[in-house]
């Protein structure tokens, strides 16, 4: 009756050998291709470094002005611009400016990369049910797998630094981008698509003139989600050497510095709110034609 009280598991030796074999296989892969893969990602690294240098080397009043200008351009709302200003000033006053700039540059690059990869995948997925069935479980894994777990192979391959951090963040943050692009395109009114067909639109014309514009509110929601998830991941990514607001938080956890933790945590919340409000206001402004309804 042993099998009843204890799950009849795989033989201990066999299991150990299996794990060892997989580990060794991956290590061999790392040794064999690690450099090539690093080379492949090096343009990304240059881009990351340039973005960070820009954000940290530009004098703070200029950065503040740029952020406010972007906020105004996207939202056309004084309230949002004002709250951005207050948040930035508070962050600077409590001496978290440099870390915040590093985090913002990281989030910026992650979001760009997620959009650049996520939207095309989402478009392809919306066109093929088979691809959708294939990609969906992968996205599920990406979203539910504890993020520490996929930090391991990334670090083994690329070591510690910005690029592995970026990859970890993008893996975590890209699923909503892909899912919502796919959903948005699938939800486009069939009647309008039929009309586009009836006028002889090519599939590129249909995508450009009908599907993407009509899916835009959903895609914008995806971008917003991606930014939020990237911010949430920044603290974890700091474990593998991503600089920014995550590192002081990590230090605070290790040493039980309550105030340090809460200040940096609040700074993350602050920039999350800025990103969220500005991107949502922009999404809404793009959709202004939807609101005015014939009486």
């Amino acid at each position: 009756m042993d099998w009843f009280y204890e799950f009849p598991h795989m033989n201990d030796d066999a299991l150990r050998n299996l794990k060892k074999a997989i580990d060794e296989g991956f290590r061999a892969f790392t040794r064999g291709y690690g450099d090539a893969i690093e080379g492949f990602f090096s343009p990304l690294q240059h881009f990351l470094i340039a973005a960070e240098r820009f954000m940290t080397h530009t004098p703070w009043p200029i950065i503040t002005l740029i952020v406010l200008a972007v906020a105004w351009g996207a939202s056309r709302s004084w309230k949002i611009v004002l709250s951005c200003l207050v948040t930035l000033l508070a962050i600077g006053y409590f001496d978290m400016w440099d870390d915040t700039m590093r985090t913002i540059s990281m989030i910026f690059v992650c979001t760009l990369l997620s959009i650049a990869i996520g939207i095309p995948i989402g478009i392809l997925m919306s066109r093929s049910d088979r691809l959708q069935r294939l990609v969906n479980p992968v996205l599920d894994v990406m979203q539910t797998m504890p993020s520490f777990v996929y930090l391991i192979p990334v670090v083994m391959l690329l070591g510690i630094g910005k690029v592995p951090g970026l990859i970890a963040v993008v893996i975590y943050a890209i699923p909503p981008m892909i899912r919502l692009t796919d959903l948005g395109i699938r939800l486009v009114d069939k009647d309008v698509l039929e009309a586009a067909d009836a006028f002889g639109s090519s599939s590129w014309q249909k995508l450009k003139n009908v599907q993407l514009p009509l899916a835009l509110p959903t895609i914008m929601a995806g971008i917003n989600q991606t930014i939020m998830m990237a911010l949430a991941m920044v603290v974890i990514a700091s474990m593998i050497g991503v600089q920014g607001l995550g590192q002081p938080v990590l230090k605070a956890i290790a040493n039980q510095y309550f105030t340090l933790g809460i200040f940096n945590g609040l700074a993350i919340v602050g920039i999350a709110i800025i990103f969220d409000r500005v991107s949502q206001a922009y999404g809404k402004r793009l959709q202004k034609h939807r609101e005015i309804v014939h009486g």
Partner: protein
Amino acid sequence: MADHHFDGIKIRNLYKIFGSNAATHVEAVRNGLSKAELNEKFGHVLGLKDINIEMPSGCIQVIMGLSGSGKSTLIRHINRLIDPTAGEVLVNGVDVVKMNELELREFRRHQTAMVFQKFALLPHRNVLDNTVYGLEVQGVERAKAVDVAMRWIERVGLKGFEGKYPNQLSGGMQQRVGLARALANDAPVLLMDEAYSALDPLIRTDMQTVLLDLQKEIRKTIVFITHDLDEALRLGDQIAILRDGEVIQQGTSQDIVLRPADDYVANFVKEVNRGRVVHVEAVMAPARPGFSPDAITIPAGTTIEDAMRVIAKGPDGDVAVVGPTGKPIGVVNLRQLAGAMVNSHGAASHDGGSLARAL
């Protein structure tokens, strides 16, 4: 303007069966397998059965039927938004069914334009940008496309609304945009899929007038789908009545009203205002030899209602119906006309006694 050599639309032996193995069942349907049997035995739905319609160039062909009769399926075969299971669709002599993807796209860009029941406008584009859509797809340069579009926007009565979004317009105005978008394409074939069914009755009549007025100058081959017999009779140069995927009667409005092919059609026709459809020739008595027309005459082709209006103003007695040359071809009086209007059983009587009987 429509191409002068445009050869009209010919639909020949068209079958459409919905289902995974449609092609294998065409032969059985040809040999008399009924719609119900096909559905029961094979789980396939018979959409269209042996459709043969010739639509001459420059005419309005109405296809009338109730929902489920296959009329929307039929119109989508003309620009192949739906692929047929068997048969030919010749537009200007070219079989649409045999076109490859590229040819089909070119065909849709230049030969057909379509107006939809639910308007199907692009919600994120304003009236002008919606109207240029067809031209944009064709690759016409923007300035020229805007020129053409503005002309049609003005022609359908939307001048000053170019910058509005579809959401800001009423249903009738949205469909004017749909019409302008289709006309801007300047294709010889105009497909109108229940274009006015979503509009309320007054606006619908209004839009019918717009279409009839336009047709006098554009002379396009228009295929108009409707479930409304009054609309069909008003617009159609030719009418085809569809039931369960089959054409049960084809002809002019006169044919349909005066000689319904079966009880189904007769049942429809019963509710029709005959005065607005039936022409005086169907009612008139032969002119007595030596009859000399008065000052008032009625041209052939006048509807009973219009003829009554003319006669009601004049003196009692017979009024001459004159042919295109002005020569009298018959006579009518108020009694005959009134009789024909209330008589629901086809051919009007020549002695005027029908009125007495009806009363």
